């Protein structure tokens, strides 16, 4: 028998490409959706990518379509800067407590930019992985959806804060805004909480503390027109274009001390990075250090295209360590598995292909009380519905596939 508390509404936790997909697919089949995202905008990690492999097209293109779908739908209620604090109940009837953090900007913000012009202090820019700074009143990026400013809490109670508030002609600044919680009644919960880059500082032998050792996600921002270098690939130490670059695969992945699984995307992402370098820097050489080159299905052809470039070389080896070298050039040390030669090779820039760690891995998702697998992924089973990289290490296309399936699972759950 249907009870009166049953809900056809679906809650999606996480507003990256997977969560967005689950939300629009379910909404377009006639279900109401509540989409909860912890950061100020939707788009997640893919919004921070410069391009996708293998087409080298821009992720914002697909995001634009998905944002248009959300705007047209009217069935999707989006909460940004929001997390899930508690989940009670079961399939068909959950009560979910949502907690919002202060944006210090009210919903009537028009993104006119007056507050940004009034701000004087700067904060690290999370969109560019803290590689540059933004004003304390900022639009997260030009594709931000919802297109509203964010004001950093640090200016509250300061003369700067007052100046920012005074600059807003429509009174949209609220420096006293506090954390809030509210409950929503939903019939299904989909966890699309995504991933974070595995912390490179944990790979102590790879000396992420050296200025010219960066990670693959930072490389995406360096190559992006909206990145800290306006799309130019430059060494962090001196702003010079690198001539000799190493890409280190499995930096953390396939390693029992770090991520036991293969993160699936890093080999192909590195092929893309080789393409970024070769597109910009005609003289540069790129060395790829790898254990196995994993290019699944038709993506093999992308690997073949890059392999055919004589300035991209492949070294079968898991480097043992990085030493600091003269001129801020990191020295890559190890043994070539095929030739058995020991190398100590200086590079202008070293990129660590760090893997994907589920956001749930370190137990910082208290509201999720189901079982995690040994790595921290949410295995979809029974009433637990997960999508995208929350469920396992997937590429974008597979994440969307998983998220579309999750929409159907959620619809089923509301019918339970």
């Amino acid at each position, binding site marked *: 028998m249907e009870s009166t508390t049953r809900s056809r509404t679906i809650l999606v936790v996480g507003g990256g490409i997977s969560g967005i997909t689950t939300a629009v*697919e379910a909404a*377009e*089949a006639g279900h109401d959706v509540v989409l909860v995202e912890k950061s100020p905008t939707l788009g997640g990690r893919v919004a921070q990518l410069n391009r*996708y492999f293998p*087409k*080298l*097209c*821009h992720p914002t*293109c*697909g995001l*634009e*379509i998905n944002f248009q*779908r959300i*705007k*047209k739908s009217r069935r999707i209620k989006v909460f940004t800067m929001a997390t899930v604090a508690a989940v009670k109940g079961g399939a068909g009837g959950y009560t979910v407590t949502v907690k919002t953090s202060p944006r210090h900007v009210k919903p*009537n913000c*028009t*993104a006119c930019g007056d507050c940004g012009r009034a701000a004087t202090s700067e904060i690290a820019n999370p969109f560019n992985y803290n590689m540059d700074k933004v004003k304390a009143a900022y639009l997260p990026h*030009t*594709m931000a959806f919802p*297109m509203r400013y964010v004001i950093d809490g640090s200016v509250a109670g300061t003369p700067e804060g007052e100046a920012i508030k005074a600059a807003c002609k*429509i009174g949209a600044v609220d420096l006293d805004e506090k954390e809030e919680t509210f409950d929503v009644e939903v019939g299904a919960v989909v966890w699309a909480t995504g991933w974070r880059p595995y912390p490179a500082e944990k790979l102590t032998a790879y000396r992420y503390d050296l200025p010219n050792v960066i990670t693959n996600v930072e490389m995406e921002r360096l190559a*992006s*027109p909206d990145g800290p270098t*306006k799309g130019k690939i430059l060494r962090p130490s001196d702003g010079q274009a690198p001539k000799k670059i190493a890409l280190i695969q499995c930096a953390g992945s396939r390693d029992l001390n770090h991520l*036991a*699984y*293969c*993160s699936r995307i890093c080999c192909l992402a590195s092929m893309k990075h080789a*393409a970024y370098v*070769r*597109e910009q820097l005609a003289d540069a050489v790129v060395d790829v250090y790898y254990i*196995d080159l*994993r*290019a*699944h*299905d*038709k993506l*093999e*052809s992308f690997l073949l*295209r890059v*392999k*055919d470039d004589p300035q991209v070389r492949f070294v079968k080896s898991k480097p043992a360590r990085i030493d600091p070298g003269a001129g801020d050039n990191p020295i890559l040390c190890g043994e070539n598995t*095929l*030739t058995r030669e020991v190398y100590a090779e200086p590079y202008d820039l070293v990129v660590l292909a760090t893997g994907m760690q589920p956001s749930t891995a370190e137990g910082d998702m208290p509201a999720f009380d189901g079982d995690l*697998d040994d790595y921290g*992924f949410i*295995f979809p089973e029974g009433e637990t519905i997960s999508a995208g990289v929350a469920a*396992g*290490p*997937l590429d*974008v296309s597979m994440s*969307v*596939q998983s998220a*579309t*399936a999750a*929409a*159907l699972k959620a*619809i*089923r759950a509301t019918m339970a």
Partner: protein
Amino acid sequence: MSERNTGVYLCSGCGIGEALNMDALEKVSKSEYKLEPKSHACLCSDEGVGMIRSDIEGGVNQVIVAACSARVMTDRFAFEPNTLIRADLREKVIWSHPAGDEDTQMLAEDYLRMALASAPKINPPTPWIEGEYSQRICVLGGGVTGLNAALEAAAVGHDVLLIERSDRLGGWAVDASKRLPHRPPYAQPEENNIADLVAKVQGEGKITVRMGVTVTRTAGMPGKFAVTLSDGAVEDVGAIVIATGWRPYEAEKLGHLGYGASPDVVTNVQFEAMLKEGRPTRKSDGKALKSVAFVQCAGSRDPAHLPYCSNTCCATSLKQALELIETDPTTNCFVIYEEMRTPGTAEELYRTAQSAGVIFIKGKVKAVGSDLTVTVADELVQEEIPLQGLDMVVLATGMVPNSTNTMLPSEAGENPQLHGDVDPEAPIKVAGYAGEAPPAHERREQVVYEGASLLNLQYRQGPHLPVLHDGFADSHYICFPYETRRSGIYTCGPVRRPMDWAEAEEDAQGAVMKAVQAVRSAAAGAALHPRVGDLSYPKIGLNQCTKCRRCTVECPFGAIDETEEGFPSVNSTRCRRCGTCMGACPVRTISFDNYSVESLVTQIKSVNIPDEFSGKPRLLLIACENDAVPALDMAGIKHNNWSAFVRVLPVRCLGSVSLLCVSEALLGGYDGVMLMGCKAGDDYQCHFVKGSAMAAERLGKIGETLKSMMLEPERVVQVEASIADADRLPKVIDGFVEQIMAIGFNPMKGF
């Protein structure tokens, strides 16, 4: 329809009022269009929106908002079912042009004119809804993927027609031993539960199973497909899920790997069946297996055979080796591989195999002799080593998609739609990086053409579902993996991409999700992705139609058929509303309620064209609203300036642009026309497949027209834009303005 009552609302917020002369803007509406506008200092505020809403209550049924870009404040300016027209005075005027400037003011007034002029040409769309719609979902293929698809569709309340060409359900899984691991801790082979899955399907009342039949004919459209089976039955279904799976690559073609030379050289599929029956023995003499070699990439990643990686073969060989070791731990298992591909959590199975004592040899197999000597070019020791004393060699053959039915002969004649979308040999041409193409490998067209069409679609554009290179019926779009070019027909499982059981289960759910949307949208007359929910559809004035067939040929989705008399016939629920037919029609008799050649030309003509003595040229920028317009918006957000002599006209897709838009602009005195759209070509980024390509083809024919008008061909150009081009596009536009200034003013001006 009730009489048109248009309300005009101007916003002076966000700096618009400071940068522009609002009184002059109001005057445009009042004196030129006889519409009394209302202004507000913040139109998106509760007060501003409230003002519009109360006017709607008072009878306004069409709203013109001149404020910010149509991409923002969509939740505030939402007045359905009344039509809404937006003029962008913010992103594309004051944020991208100097404040208080005469040319900026003229630009703003022209954008307002374009909105005002289009208003009489824009009607609220009435959806196409006619007759009965079927909610039933047809699933083609009764293997793991199809069985899951059928159960999922039934579970969300849809009746299902499950069609299987053989006389049993379960597909390859029936003849398989254990499954690859898919549950935590992902380390051990799992039980094969195919019998349970088959039983579930047979026990589900909503599923009708038809075995031993194929589809001989599919007519109709989403919500109204009529599927004819080989036994003559005709079934109504609303959407179709293709789950026809895969077949092993023909081992007969792998003579160099010893297949056929000895009965003890078998394929992984054959070995799987042997494992299912218990511990396998030698086929030649029945002796026990003490030493077995698994040869990876037998056919896969081989330019002479399958150029792609079949994804599942590495893990399958590890599983088979583990099954052998489980029954006799003394079995020697060698896995000879080039790259061990166990992505994701499959790495655990690799680890299990390593600790179980499987011996891994990295290298390429050069030959397998009839005495089972395997010669390996070992990459680690860098020499050729013979591996002897083997009892059996297992070739890990790859997956070939069943995008046709090879059990039936292919139809006579070539079908152009089956040519791959993407040329795998093409170099990467994006933004200057042109890596050399890999050594040419054969286009495996024979695989694609090997069999009969799966559905035998009665479409003007042919019976097949278009496939990508390598023959997989996959989407071209990374962000939208279920997009096919035949609306309401979705693919899943290994026919889409090489994948294992667990992934196919999930893929089936995804495809059913799309099929459910398709049947529900069809019944509501609403468009599918990417213009989801659009109720407009192309209407054709047959009395003007010349039966030229351009619309039926050019539709990227095969939505338009031809009647016996040769007239176009729109299958509305197949249509994605891109307007490519509208752009194609030489007599301009195809239009949508809210989008037409007329509505575009009216906007073009509404712009004030100063005479040449003013020194102010006018250029028309016809911009695709999917990527080019957002990129221009973002240029505005970044306050990147571009020439105020340019008027941006957003269009659904460059494919919808009739050459009349270009010629009318030049006749009207514009000095140049630029079309800006998504990347065309093999790696196209056009959301409607070939809109940019069609526009380029049409522009290729405009030379004659320009010549007859005594105009230079350089006055009309097409450029590619990506959504990340916010910094580049202003330079591209300004460069075009300079080029036009160098040519000089349009001599037609003022005539």
